[in-house]
């Protein structure tokens, strides 16, 4: 009886808090400026380093601050850092924090917090791990100055510290940062421009932030993730509205101010709606689509068989199906995001040669004997599902024996980690998408990794490709990096770690009669500098 009472007590407690604490307090104070934004997902965790979900990164950028942030041109600029020095041998970086940085609990941000945060992040994020592999020491000099000592002149330190998208190197309190990497930080106390109201958090529905009045923005003009991050609204409500049509109608009716990812089907309607504006997000396309191949099992254990798959992909077909409007997509044959410094389309004659008949011929020449090709086709994703269907149609048109495994995305994620043969629960191919900022260079783009067992799922195995990626990170100049990026492209076209089916930008929509000051950035969404009108 007592046990049952305990369950009831829990439910009752939740209900009562929902009724009288959360909801009563959830009403914005009169005169407060409130920004209501419908997001692509709900804030599910308080810890931006616990998962790679983009929404965790968005939450992180609201609550926390970063040492560096990239500008519109994707150049890393100091953010929490005031000054920094790089030694002549490029092995020692000395950073000094800006004055006046404070956490939301009033305590000052110190190098102890920074070092603990970098260590935690460095153990979790792939790009961070690559950098930390060359870090021999993270030393405190004083309360505001610390030193990073490298064993080798790794050239992407600032780019890595200015990383955006997911697993952003945010700085949390030392006591939070000492939480083991796979356990969640249970507080959201950062030093960023907004403070989270944890007691008003309803996971799966609403997350509330209020202005951090103590935040000291930089003096420079805002540019991407750098410059002044000024909180210009009193309160932000991030809403999770599951239905795409309802999200659109809510924006049209003025119930929300900001729609992060309108469905591309509804963009033409929104573009014609008075007081609604649809804009591109940042200078870099937000997404790129990929066909991942399992390199472990026949026939795709041979590069010739993987290369045959190039002839199944007509990027326009994929992009028309999932985006539709050419204003928001582009055909791209580079393994690095097109439109950025290291993009290179060498080999596009081969990669872009759509010819299903040739695909089958080449597959047979590579030893394909009409065995079923297991394709994990997600059934519940707004872009991956239609893209999977385009690929399946193309494979069937070529005469390939396809075993389409139709499962939800959660199941795809679980199954793609299995190394077993397809007939034993493994897989050959799956379709997915990545963030444009995740492949700004070959070192950041972990899907280019070809380290066999250490590589991402699909487990590409090519010494030369991995050697070139490592070489890229040590290049001394942009020109040198570009040359290496070209060699990586050439090698990747041969190895085929994956196949690209184009890139696109997810537009955002907002009420132009209600808000202004949006800072368009790529790969995530930021809310500083947005103000309510009137």
């Amino acid at each position, binding site marked *: 009886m*007592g046990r049952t*009472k*305990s*369950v009831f*007590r*829990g*439910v*009752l*407690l*939740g*209900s009562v*808090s*929902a*009724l*009288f604490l*959360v*909801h*009563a307090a*959830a009403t914005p104070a009169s005169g407060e400026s409130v920004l209501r934004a419908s997001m692509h997902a*709900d804030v*599910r*965790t308080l810890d931006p380093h*616990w*998962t*790679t*979900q983009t929404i965790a990164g968005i939450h992180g950028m609201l609550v926390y601050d970063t040492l560096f942030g990239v500008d519109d041109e994707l150049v890393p600029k100091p953010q929490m850092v005031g000054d920094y020095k790089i030694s002549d041998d490029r092995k020692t970086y000395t950073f000094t924090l800006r004055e006046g940085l404070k956490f939301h609990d009033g305590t000052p941000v110190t190098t102890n917090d920074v070092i603990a945060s970098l260590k935690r992040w460095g153990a979790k*994020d792939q790009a961070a791990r690559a950098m930390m592999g060359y870090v021999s020491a993270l030393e405190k000099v004083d309360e505001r100055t610390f030193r990073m000592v490298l064993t080798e002149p790794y050239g992407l330190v600032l780019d890595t510290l200015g990383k955006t998208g*997911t697993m952003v190197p945010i700085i949390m309190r030392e006591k939070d940062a000492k939480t083991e990497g*796979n356990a*969640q930080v*249970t507080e959201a106390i950062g030093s960023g421009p907004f403070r989270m109201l944890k007691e008003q*958090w*309803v*996971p*799966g*529905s*609403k997350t509330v932030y209020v202005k951090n009045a103590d935040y000291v923005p930089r003096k420079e003009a805002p540019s991407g993730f750098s410059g002044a991050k000024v909180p210009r609204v009193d309160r932000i409500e991030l*809403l999770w509205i*599951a*239905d795409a049509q*309802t999200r659109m*109608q*809510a924006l049209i*009716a003025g*119930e929300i101010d900001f729609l992060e990812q309108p469905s591309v089907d509804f963009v033409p309607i929104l573009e014609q709606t008075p007081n609604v504006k649809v804009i591109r997000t940042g200078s870099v396309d937000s997404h790129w689509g990929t066909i991942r191949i399992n390199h472990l099992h026949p026939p795709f254990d041979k590069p010739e068989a993987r290369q045959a798959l190039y002839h199944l992909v007509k990027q326009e077909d994929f992009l028309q199906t999932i985006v539709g409007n050419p204003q928001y997509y582009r055909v791209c044959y580079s393994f690095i995001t097109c439109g950025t410094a290291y993009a290179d389309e060498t080999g596009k004659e081969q990669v872009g040669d759509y010819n299903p008949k040739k695909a089958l011929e080449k597959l047979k020449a590579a030893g394909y004997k009409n065995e079923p090709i297991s394709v994990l086709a997600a059934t*519940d994703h707004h872009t991956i599902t239609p893209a999977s269907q385009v690929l399946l149609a193309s494979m069937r048109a070529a005469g390939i024996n396809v075993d389409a495994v139709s*499962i*939800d995305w*959660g*199941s795809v*994620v*679980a*199954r*793609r*980690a299995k*190394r077993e043969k397809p007939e034993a629960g493994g897989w050959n191919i799956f379709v*997915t998408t990545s963030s444009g900022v995740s492949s700004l260079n070959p070192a950041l783009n*972990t*899907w280019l990794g070809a380290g066999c067992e250490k590589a*991402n799922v699909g487990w590409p195995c090519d010494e030369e490709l991995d050697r070139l990626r490592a070489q890229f990170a040590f290049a001394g100049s942009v020109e040198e990096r570009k040359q290496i990026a070209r060699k990586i492209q050439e090698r990747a076209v041969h190895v085929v770690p994956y196949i690209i089916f184009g890139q696109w930008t997810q537009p955002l929509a907002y009420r132009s009669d209600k808000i202004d000051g949006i800072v368009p950035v790529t790969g995530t969404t930021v809310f500083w500098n947005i103000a309510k009108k009137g």
Partner: protein
Amino acid sequence: MGAYIVRRLLATFPVMAVVAVFVFLLLRLAPGDPAALIAGDDATSADIDAIRAKLGLDLPIWEQFVLWIADILRGDLGVSIFSNLPVTVLIGQRLEPTLMLMLATLFVAVTLAIPLGVLAAWKARTAIDRIVMVFSVLGFAVPVFLAGYVLIYVFSIQLRWLPVQGYRPLAQGLWPCLQGLILPAIALGTTYMALIARITRASMLEVLAQDYIRTANAKGLATRRVLLLHALKNASVPIVTVIGIGIALLISGVVITETVFNIPGLGRLTVDAVLKRDYPIVQGLILVFAGVKVLINLMIDLSYVFLDPRIRY
């Protein structure tokens, strides 16, 4: 009667035990892995294994089950894998919107369906009867999401009378709360209204053919009195049964309505948890739903005593 209630309540435990075993096995045997979802695209197999170990998902299934049952017996439904909040708190947060939607829907359905059913039975095989029945068929046939979109377009976008989406708690006032419930209650209530109206009509037709109704009419009783006092009361057992089943369905089955109108209720919580493989939430919710359904069934059975004095337990 008291002994009957005790017997029924005791019978709840084996039912809940079967539900617990079933839901636990179903989740563990279904494809999907929360650790892989948490780890994300760049994760290595070692990363995923480490997260799985942290969540205790690397333990043998029987051991996971024993640990979960031990928690349940202590009155602890567990903690969400993602939000790290207790499942009871998450259920508590979502209870009010679902209960309010359920009450509003039942109000719409019952207040309209019973008079319509009685009317159709009274005017059986006339134009009025046919209109009511066509309306009932339509109510069944039109999907809830379609009705929802149409209602939103007309009343929220064109007329601007009611909000498109969202739920305002009772603490913010009755009218703001009701404003957000009117459209979802109509969209969802139409289906239940159709069901209840048809059952009412069928049940009333059966009763209206009884001798005592003919006698009542022959005595010169007013039609309203015959219909409502003599016929409806005796026809009410199947009607109450259907309403009761409706309540049970509404508690867990309002996913589409909650999605279309963005009401943060238990239905959405369930779907989101299933998609994320948040095992503790799904397990906790299914147990709560099962318990509620068992209790509602008991209450329906007990209500028969008051509706029909011939029924004894």
